[in-house]
């Protein structure tokens, strides 16, 4: 009985952690903050699934843990490849910095006349 109450407390703490992570995903301010919070959310989810397995004494979700541990990093790596200064709060566009406006949008990458020439 005591142990069941302890599992409830553990679940509440995990829930609080997830709520805080979702708060950071919603607030941002940059895409990197969102990806860091997403990584942490997945790690918390893995721990919470393990706690659920201990509570209900089964091992059915072990493959889920394995797949999450294997693939959670792919989204973060994909997004991190394409972060630009425009994603920064108060970034070049907000500052009106001419050098920075060429930095970001992938569309401007091949546009040698407008973007990089201005630099």
């Amino acid at each position, binding site marked *: 009985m005591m142990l069941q109450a*302890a599992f409830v407390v*553990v679940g509440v703490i995990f829930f609080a952690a997830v709520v805080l992570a979702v708060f950071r995903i919603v607030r941002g301010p940059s895409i990197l903050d969102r990806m860091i919070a997403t990584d942490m959310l997945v790690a918390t989810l893995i721990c919470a699934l393990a706690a659920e397995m201990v509570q209900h004494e089964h091992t059915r979700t072990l493959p889920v843990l394995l797949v999450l541990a294997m693939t959670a990093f792919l989204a973060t790596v994909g997004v*991190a490849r394409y972060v630009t200064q425009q994603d920064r709060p108060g970034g070049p566009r907000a500052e009106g910095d001419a050098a920075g406006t060429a930095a970001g949008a992938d569309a401007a990458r091949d546009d040698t006349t407008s973007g990089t020439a201005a630099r």
Partner: protein
Amino acid sequence: MSAAELLDLGSVLFLFAAALLSLAAGVGIVRFPDPLSRMHAATKPQILGLVCALVALGLQAENGATVAALVPILAFQMLTAPISAHMVGRAGYRTRHLRRDLLIRDELADAIDKAHADAARHDTEPDLPGLVTDEDTSDWRP
């Protein structure tokens, strides 16, 4: 108190540790000021929290096969968590997603300065694989 009850108690204690580490990461990710320090907070449940949760599972395991299934979970997490952290930190430094006033020491800037100094001495382009300075980020290609 029987052995099974002791194992249950141990499991619950390890789960508490995992939950508190997750909560600490959540608080850190909300309260810390810039992506680099938030990365530091977010790694808590990724390794140590996962280890605690897996130990709690292992204490409840009825056979060796279950314990053996826990090892690759930890192994893959240990392999992949540094990859994403590296990519996020690299992208964050390049695109200046960091607050320099909070840095006590920036060793990467020292390396960049050294590369530029070496290049100037030999009259060549600086050899900076994967490194882009603040002035150069405008034409950075992913």
